[in-house]
């Protein structure tokens, strides 16, 4: 079975392509990229000049299965991913039970194979039960397809324990991904410490609670040589620490979410909108501005969503009782396009680098390029399609987005995973 994509505006910085051409796909792989291609038998599709990029990967997603299927499951979460233009996501291990052994990895893989609408690359916990006390079976998990290790949702508190995690993980050639949060300093912090915590009378979550662990983990990266990936960075000073580590030549990377780029603490008003309660919290407008600069100058490696679905009833409560997190899979691409590409702050090559190329590099996955021989994971984007984010428009089971009502431009219309369409003309292929 062959597929010929015609009239495709291919953008792939890995092969230096930025032109309208044709892509011939057979048996899940790209056979040829060029002009006036011959296809004896198969399906033709005219993309009408839409942008085609290597399939997007969101390397920070909470699919919630097993354990929290009321919020999301692998079927609904991967549907949301497909709708958002992703061909793959990295699942976080803070499920119930925690994904901290090979059985957990195999469960995620088998559910994804059975019901998934995109590839799922499972991450595994660094420590058993995310408790920060005993190493998890990283070797066995790696052998079963775990792509990286993380205790996401919380930081590993003890420096000695974190050193053990990174020392041990370093033998498997995978990154350790860290949620930086010093529990003793952060305590029960609800929102960024400063203007918003004072104005709304809630305990503050100080920037230093994140920055201390970033600094510590960079030091441990130097000590152990283990590749370190800083998750959802939120502050200017934290970003400067990452810049300095990179300049030193350490194997350090970092990611940022659209909500930390395009929202800030000032958006949390006396309406106490729980959808804006995220961890780490929304920081200052200056921090958000510095993060956008980091995206533009290449200091930030990847865009992720930290897609964190919660049910309506869990979020419809007192701010201090609400769980942390917002969804993001279905708005990420459009937010980056609307705020950064359309405004000229970055170009499409940079978007592809952060949303397709870098995540695969950090997760040690095979690269996907729009060239002969590559797996045909592709995302087709209509960069001019205007749409409004609405509560009832999500494929996710949950609607806890901080961007409800936002008017955005650009959307994935078609997604191909291994040559098969998972999204066609904006609709999920069943």
């Amino acid at each position, binding site marked *: 079975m062959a597929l010929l994509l015609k009239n495709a505006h291919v953008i792939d910085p890995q092969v230096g392509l930025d032109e309208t051409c044709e892509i011939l796909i057979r048996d899940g792989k790209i056979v040829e990229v060029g002009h006036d291609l011959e296809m004896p038998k198969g399906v033709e599709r005219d993309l009408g000049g839409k942008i085609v990029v290597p399939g997007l990967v969101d390397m920070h997603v909470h699919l919630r299965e097993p354990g929290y299927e009321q919020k999301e499951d692998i079927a609904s979460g991967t549907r949301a991913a497909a709708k958002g233009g992703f061909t793959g996501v990295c699942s976080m291990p803070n499920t119930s039970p925690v994904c901290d052994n090979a059985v957990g990895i195999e469960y995620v893989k088998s559910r994804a194979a059975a019901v998934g609408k995109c590839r799922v690359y499972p991450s595994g916990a660094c420590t058993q039960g995310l408790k920060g006390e005993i190493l998890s079976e990283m070797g066995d998990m790696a052998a079963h397809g775990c792509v990286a290790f993380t205790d996401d949702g919380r930081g590993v508190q003890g420096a000695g324990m974190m050193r053990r995690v990174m020392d041990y993980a370093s033998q498997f050639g995978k990154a350790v991904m860290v949620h930086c949060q010093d529990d003793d300093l952060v305590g029960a912090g609800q929102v960024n410490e400063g203007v918003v915590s004072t104005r*709304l*009378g809630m*305990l503050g979550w100080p920037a230093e609670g994140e920055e201390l662990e970033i600094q510590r983990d960079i030091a441990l990266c130097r000590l152990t040589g283990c590749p370190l990936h800083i998750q959802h960075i939120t502050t200017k000073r934290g970003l400067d620490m990452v810049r300095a580590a990179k300049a030193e030549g350490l194997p350090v990377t970092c990611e940022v979410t659209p909500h930390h780029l395009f929202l800030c603490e000032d958006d949390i008003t006396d*309406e106490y909108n729980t959808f804006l309660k995220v961890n780490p919290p929304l920081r200052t407008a200056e921090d958000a501005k510095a993060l956008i600069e980091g995206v533009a100058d290449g200091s930030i490696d990847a865009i992720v969503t930290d897609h964190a679905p919660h049910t309506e009833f869990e979020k419809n*409560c*007192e701010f201090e009782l609400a769980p942390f997190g917002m969804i993001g899979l279905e708005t990420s691409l459009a937010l980056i396009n609307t705020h950064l590409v359309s405004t000229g702050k970055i170009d499409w090559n940079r978007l592809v680098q952060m949303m397709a190329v870098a995540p695969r590099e950090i997760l040690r996955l095979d690269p996907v390029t729009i060239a002969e021989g590559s797996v045909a994971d592709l995302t087709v984007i209509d960069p001019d399609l205007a749409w409004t984010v609405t509560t009832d428009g999500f494929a996710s089971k949950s609607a806890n987005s901080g961007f409800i009502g936002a008017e955005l431009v650009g959307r994935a219309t078609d997604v191909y995973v291994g040559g098969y369409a998972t999204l066609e003309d904006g609709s999920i292929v069943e």
Partner: protein
Amino acid sequence: MGFNHKHLIDITEYSADDIMLILETARRFKEVNERRIKQVPTLKGMTIVNMFNEPSTRTRSSFEIAEKRLSANSLNFGGSSTSAVKGESLTDTVETLCSYKIDMIIVRDKHAGVPRKIADVSGVHVIDAGDGKHQHPTQALLDLYSIWETKGDFNGLKVGVVGDIGHSRVCGSLIPALKIMGCEVTVIAPPTLMPARPDVLGADHVTSNLDEALPDLDVVYMLRIQRERLEGAPFPSLREYNLLYGLTQEREHLMKDDAIICHPGPINRGVELDSYMADHPNRSVILDQVYAGILTRMAALYLLLGGSEDGIVA
């Protein structure tokens, strides 16, 4: 003189004129409270729910007396009977209450933002009787009333607030209210009890030195050390707190002759105040504040529920 508020939730939504109207109305209610039969029919037929989801004796009693003196029907809802204990969501609880066809909810809750949420869900009048570490607007109003009665004017008045500023809902309303009325506010506390940004509340001066600040102050507002609301241990001992921040007889020589002392109660004698200061016949207005609580709450109920003009003088 129009009064266009449905709720009393955020004191910063009130203008100086709004606040003066409440204070002047409160003063008119004094007459009702000094009769033998201390009741007027102003809010007859109105149903008010006192939803106290956190222990409170003083504030709840004060509201109850104010409601009864205005002839409102009141229902106490909360304490061990709170629905939250049974797992009901706040929204469901409020919608249940509203099905009783009520007119107002007065809410005390340990979580910030609850009164606003209740207002959004219920559509009835809401008074915040203290939400978490956020605000406590009727406390601010009664404080203003006591200061106004004693000092006669707010303009340029120098007010010092001493104590646990960072965890205090009283400050969340009082400091902005003092600023609205034209006072100059100094906050005095150990750095461990200071909010991250006292300037956001409106504080003009921030210091940790009580002795340096005292000589300038017309009003010394001593906050209660809320032992139940302190995270960690922000000072080494009550003894040291009293040494550094206690308003004691030894410090009286630093005070202006006509400086007054306020406290929201209940007092921790020997901690933030000694008995000499707490009971000082010329300076302490602490019991006047309690009475002012009745007057200002009657005024707030009356104005928010649109009580008839002759209700006051009936």
